[in-house]
């Protein structure tokens, strides 16, 4: 019996490629920067920390925390993207297009307007919790709008995409209004308007990483049911999947995973949208391997974006979220072209 082996081989190869890419991106991210850190110093610092060496200090207190945040953000956004796209069976679904990012930004900005202490460094975790709540709020709002718009009659999730876009625009509008009303503090809040990976946010990562681990675990457990949901709700249901329950749990868990990443470093868009499209040709459609592979690819991509943000305009550092938006915008065009404008488009609608 050989019908599964080709798939398994491809999945193994894809996962190895993803892991290799992640390691390479991590090495580059840690070594390159305003100061070059040679690989042997890198390994030495990882092996034994010497507080008297500047390089060791830089690594342990700046680059490694920064890299860990990038890995977490990339992995969570990618995971959430895979699951949301599978659930909606729509290639344009992602945490950002579902209002998670806009909701988180709004709540933090609103919180800071009402309680200025929120932005002080000792309240990092409170900022994170506000963002987490905001992310979930954005997604719930988008889902409610979609439901009012008749999502039930729309199996391909187009109403949800439109509702998400609408909610994101509305929430960003309110955010902008608050920012404009308080010009002095606008620069403090800019980190929350576009995602910014920075080593000072390591406390928030330390506070929230477990959310991501639990979310990934739950999504992996649901992966077989999610595979069947790819075939449509009727088919999945008649094959034994509790479609309403699995859909709700998977939706909630992936929104939580994405919101926890936003809570660590602000809204980093597009990873959730783009990574599943990179991972699928490598790993195939099965959700389990796709989740693992996307985690690796998302983390690697986020590390590279972070590196670009640090290196592109030295000595100035861009917000990683800005780089992501630029890269993602280009990719978005490619996705639209592939799925909606090419000869394959007919299969989607």
């Amino acid at each position, binding site marked *: *019996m*050989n*019908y*599964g082996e*080709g*798939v398994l081989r491809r999945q193994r190869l894809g996962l190895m490629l993803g892991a290799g890419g992640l390691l390479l991106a991590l090495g580059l991210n840690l070594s390159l920067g305003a100061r070059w850190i040679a690989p042997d110093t890198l390994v030495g610092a990882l092996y034994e920390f010497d507080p008297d060496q500047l390089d060791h200090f830089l690594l342990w207190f700046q680059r490694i925390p920064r890299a860990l945040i990038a890995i977490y953000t990339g992995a969570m956004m990618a995971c959430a993207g895979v699951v949301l796209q599978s659930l909606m*069976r729509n290639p344009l679904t992602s945490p950002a297009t579902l209002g998670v990012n806009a909701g988180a930004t709004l709540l933090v900005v609103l919180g800071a307007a009402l309680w200025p202490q929120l932005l002080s460094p000792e309240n990092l975790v409170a900022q994170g919790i506000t963002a987490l709540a905001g992310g979930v709020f954005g997604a719930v709002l988008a889902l409610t709008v979609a439901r009012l718009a008749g999502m039930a009659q729309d199996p391909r999730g187009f109403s949800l995409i439109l509702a998400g876009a609408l909610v994101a625009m509305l929430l960003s509008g309110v955010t902008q209004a608050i920012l404009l009303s308080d010009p002095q503090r606008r620069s403090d809040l800019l980190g929350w308007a576009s995602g910014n990976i920075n080593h000072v946010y390591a406390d928030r990562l330390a506070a929230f990483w477990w959310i991501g681990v639990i979310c990934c675990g739950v999504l992996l*457990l649901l992966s*077989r*049911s999610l*595979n*069947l949901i*790819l*075939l*449509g*709700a*009727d*088919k999945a*249901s*008649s*094959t*034994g*999947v*509790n479609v309403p329950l699995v859909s709700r749990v998977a939706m909630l868990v992936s929104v939580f995973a994405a919101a926890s990443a936003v809570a660590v470093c602000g809204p980093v868009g597009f990873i959730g949208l783009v990574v599943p499209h990179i991972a*699928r*040709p490598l790993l*195939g*459609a*099965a959700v389990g391997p796709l989740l693992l592979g996307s985690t690796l690819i998302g983390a690697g991509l986020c590390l590279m974006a972070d590196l670009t943000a640090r290196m592109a305009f030295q000595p100035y550092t861009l917000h990683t979220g800005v780089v992501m938006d630029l890269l993602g915008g280009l990719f978005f065009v490619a996705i639209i072209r592939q799925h909606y404008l090419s000869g394959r488009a007919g*299969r989607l609608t």
Partner: protein
Amino acid sequence: MVLELCNVSVSYGKNLCVRDVSHRFSDGRFTALVGPNGCGKSTLLRALMGLLPMQQGEARLDQRPVSTIGRRSLARRVAYLPQDNHCPDYMTLGELIELSSFSRSRLMRGPSASDRQIFRDALETVGLLDMAHRPLNTLSGGQRQRAWIAMVLAQDADLILMDEPVNHLDIAYQYSVLNLVARLTRQKGKTVICVLHDLNLTASFADEVVLMRDGGIEAAGPVRETITVGNVTKTFGMEAEIFDRNGRLVCLPYPTELTA
């Protein structure tokens, strides 16, 4: 496996699509559900699978109300092929077939040896064994339809419900697919209920036929006794000639003006 409908009514929103239908489907036979568009055939199948709530009445599987059977154990007894099926990008035929064993599978375990044999048999039955490694999107329309049928077979249920399985197929595939379905009942003792549109295909392959109109059953019974000029006229509102040619029943409808 005996499926019985007792006074079943199903509504879609405010429209009552199936009205007070009672019928006993014969065990181990191929029954065709035939009727005009929108007469409630597909709605009836979906309600049977628990995908739509029944307004009234109940369906019984071997005396037991279907609504009391859990989703997973229902999936082990009844397989369903929806009218429209979605092929996910990059999914291979082999992966699709493996998904059919969900109701028998345990968490974090791959398919058992006996499941693998079932998958293999299903692919062999539809003649796609050598295509298992191919992505679904690279298969032709006919191959894809047979892939869906293989998935239904691999679910290894005794009762199979199919909603227009020969849609989008050319006549050669229509005949070969239905021949395959008919063989399932004759050789493997499966009970098949299948929505069809073509009375000639129905007459060629089905054992029994249920003619539906406006959400109710117009006539039901063995094919030769049920496909009559009177019943066809009543069900479809059009004239037809029905005759025997070399032992096969042929239904030749006469063109009429569309009314209403």
